[in-house]
């Protein structure tokens, strides 16, 4: 019986249907990778070579485009700015949302229900409806136009979803733990930071991934907030380059590759966690 099943399944595996499936997947993968492949390929060619042999492999590797792009987008500074914004935003969201989500989930009563509803309702508000006033408020609070300011704004925009995720996750942690700790004379803050917070690690990873991806790739908010080139993020610098040197594809492609490279490396290293984090966030959010 088992042998029959094996024979059946291995025959099925080699059947025409399976080759069709593989063919479709390979074509779709080719379509997905094509722009990235073309960008990398042509960023390594000289201008003349790119114009005449756009599809061919480069005859010799030219890295001049990269040093050109590196200076034009002020790579180190833009990279640093992007990291700082993401770091401030993600850290703040994890810290504040885990505290709020945990306590609201643990405290029965109207007040905590009210807070929860208040946070969750905002997931309905689209960014476009608040951006105009957000610019004005940020100006008045002097958080407009700087990396740390942008990080703080991201905390305000991102805590609600994170609270929702933490709130749901805390239910899976037994209350006995809290009670035992309190019995032993543990204070509220120590209970949270020493005992509860480490147990939240799986959902903290999800929150960190979702928010880091969002902040790293967000374009409209930095575009509206950043006016001083000292504070440009990678995306804003690249956008400026694209606007200024519309036809200088060598530098543009090199800057695109420079900007993509860190994310793709991180993705390939952590893809298991990232994909499960995305699925988790999408289904619960």
């Amino acid at each position: 019986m088992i042998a029959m099943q094996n024979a059946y399944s291995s025959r099925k595996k080699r059947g025409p249907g399976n080759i069709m499936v593989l063919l479709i997947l390979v074509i779709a993968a080719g379509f997905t990778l094509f722009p990235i492949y073309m960008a990398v390929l042509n960023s390594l060619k000289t201008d003349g070579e790119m114009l005449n042999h756009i599809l061919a492999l480069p005859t010799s590797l030219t890295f001049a485009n990269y040093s050109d792009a590196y200076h034009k987008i002020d790579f180190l500074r833009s990279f640093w700015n992007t990291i700082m914004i993401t770091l401030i935003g993600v850290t703040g969201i994890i810290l504040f949302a885990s505290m709020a989500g945990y306590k609201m989930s643990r405290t029965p009563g109207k007040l905590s229900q009210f807070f929860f509803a208040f946070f969750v309702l905002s997931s309905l508000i689209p960014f476009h409806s608040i951006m105009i006033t957000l610019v004005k408020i940020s100006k008045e609070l002097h958080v407009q136009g700087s990396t740390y300011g942008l990080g703080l704004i991201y905390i305000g925009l991102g805590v609600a979803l994170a609270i929702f995720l933490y709130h749901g996750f805390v239910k899976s942690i037994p209350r006995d733990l809290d009670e035992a700790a309190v019995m032993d004379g543990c204070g509220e803050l120590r209970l949270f930071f020493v005992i509860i917070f480490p147990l939240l690690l799986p959902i903290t990873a999800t929150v960190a991934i979702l928010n880091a991806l969002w902040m790293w790739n967000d374009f409209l908010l930095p575009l509206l907030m950043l006016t001083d080139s000292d504070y440009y993020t990678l995306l804003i610098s690249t956008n400026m380059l694209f606007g200024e040197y519309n036809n200088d594809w060598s530098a543009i492609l090199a800057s695109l590759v420079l900007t993509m490279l860190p994310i793709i490396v991180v993705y390939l290293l952590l893809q298991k966690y990232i994909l499960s984090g995305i699925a988790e966030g999408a289904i619960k959010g």
Partner: protein
Amino acid sequence: MNLSRKNKQSIILLAFVLPSLLFYAVFTIAPAFGGVWYSLTNWNGLNPTYQMVGFSNYIEALGNDPYFIKSIGFTLKYVIVMVVLQNVIALLLAVLVESRRRSKVLFRTIFFMPNMLSLIIGGFMWVFIFTKVLPVIAEKTGWLLLDQSWIGDPSFSFYSIVILSLWGGVGYQMVIYIAALQGVPKSLSEAAAIDGANSVQNFRHVTLPMIYPAVTIGIFLTLSTSFKVFDAVFALTGGGPGRSTQVIAINIVEEAFRFNQRYGYASAKAIILFIIVLLITMVQLWIMKRREVEA
């Protein structure tokens, strides 16, 4: 004694919620109310003074602003195409990827990769493909269809925006569908296969009903994100040529920040966008949740 215990609990709750509440109130709730307030004024963003003008911004936007109306129409067309294509392709890819044994991780990794990149980056790469690479391929293969003005010709730029959006967005939907497919018990489809169901019947009558909640989420997400599309259009066409690809979000940003500085008027348009998204997603959820119960 009892009351003071409850009070103490409330104070601790407040202490834990306060940091979140503060940031959230300043950067989300206050701007949301501010948006509604300014939508009723003629504020231009610079002048400290402004007048209340009632609903005249709304009346102008919906009654006397051909570009805004056009942008709503263009966005609707985009939303419909995206909701259908994005979900159909994502579900198809999810099923095909899940049917592979050894290569599933590889394909999953590839299909999600564009999602790690901003659509601004993806958009600039696609501008290169559309303007520089496709003409060369068309010349070499004789496929003249490829040699179009994908960005400069209004009838083609719609498709270029759809292609970029699918390229960047399908992987996300696929991950949701894969998670749902993994939740379908193997025994169900095995039982159906023994009863003589072929793989298409198996998918329609066993798998699809089981993953129906994921379809609801998938359509909800594509609906709400497609209505707000900005990056893809900004990177490819910037709304042009001649405002032919102007989606609602681009129209609002231009109204407020780029040309006109009519903050009050732009706020009214943003509120209209909010109401459209809210109404349509609520109707979608209501219809699909009802079917979920039946299925």
